[in-house]
């Protein structure tokens, strides 16, 4: 993300989106981050975007598969660790 000048420059939505994508889950205390946070609070589009990126991650976190007993047995056999 480009550096923002705190005195003269406000972030635009594109800056915010790039920043959200770069720093979701990171510490957000830099001067740039504080400007971004303020923008998100005031901008419905960015707020929405921020939440949708978080939800995207949540979808993939909740999509899990379980190893079958057969696959477990084949693994132990291939490793020579059968009981």
């Amino acid at each position, binding site marked *: 993300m480009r550096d923002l000048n705190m005195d003269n420059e406000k972030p635009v939505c*594109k800056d915010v989106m790039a920043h959200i*994508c770069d720093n979701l889950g990171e510490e957000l205390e830099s001067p740039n981050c504080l400007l971004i946070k303020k923008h998100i609070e005031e901008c419905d589009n960015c707020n929405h975007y921020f939440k949708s990126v978080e939800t*995207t*991650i949540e979808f*993939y976190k909740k999509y899990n598969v379980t190893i079958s007993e057969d*696959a*477990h047995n084949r693994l132990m056999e291939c490793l020579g660790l059968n*009981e």
Partner: protein
Amino acid sequence: MNELRLIEEAQNGNKKALAELVKLYEQTVYNFSFKICRNKEKAEHTMQETFLSMVKNIKQFSGQSKLSTWLYRVVSNHCLMLARSQGKHEFTSFEDESAVIDEKSIADWKVTPDKIAENNELREFLDIAIGKLPADYRVVFMLRDVEGLSTEETAKAVDLTVAAVKSRLHRARAFLRDELNERFKYGQ
């Protein structure tokens, strides 16, 4: 027996301890592998390769990182090797940043992540969406966002700089978000 003790025993040739370590991590490794390969046979093959590497190299494991982090590194490499063997198209990159940041399409999504367990169509769609990402972006997204490794741990696991991890993560998140947005703004 705790994990450190199991590792010590396994390093001293105790097969029961080794088997316990495999059992502790097989689900995590299989699940991660599936999330990269999006195919059960390939996921099983990659899981087997990962544990074969673990068994072969357990004596060299120094304990400086967690065993789980070490395994993520090994399974990531096996997933990427498999993807490489499948052709170059798996490693295309997103050069045009503006193409993946779509600020015009902001809509309420009609589907929530809670629906995923009971919805095959939704899982299939998520597979297709992430399948469009090059494997190296998929691995970064999965390690950092889904498995919760730090940016530094992710960088170490896939041999990239922190800046390169952030860049891939940014593009992967934006790409997936836009794919899901196209679908979910009209409902599932």
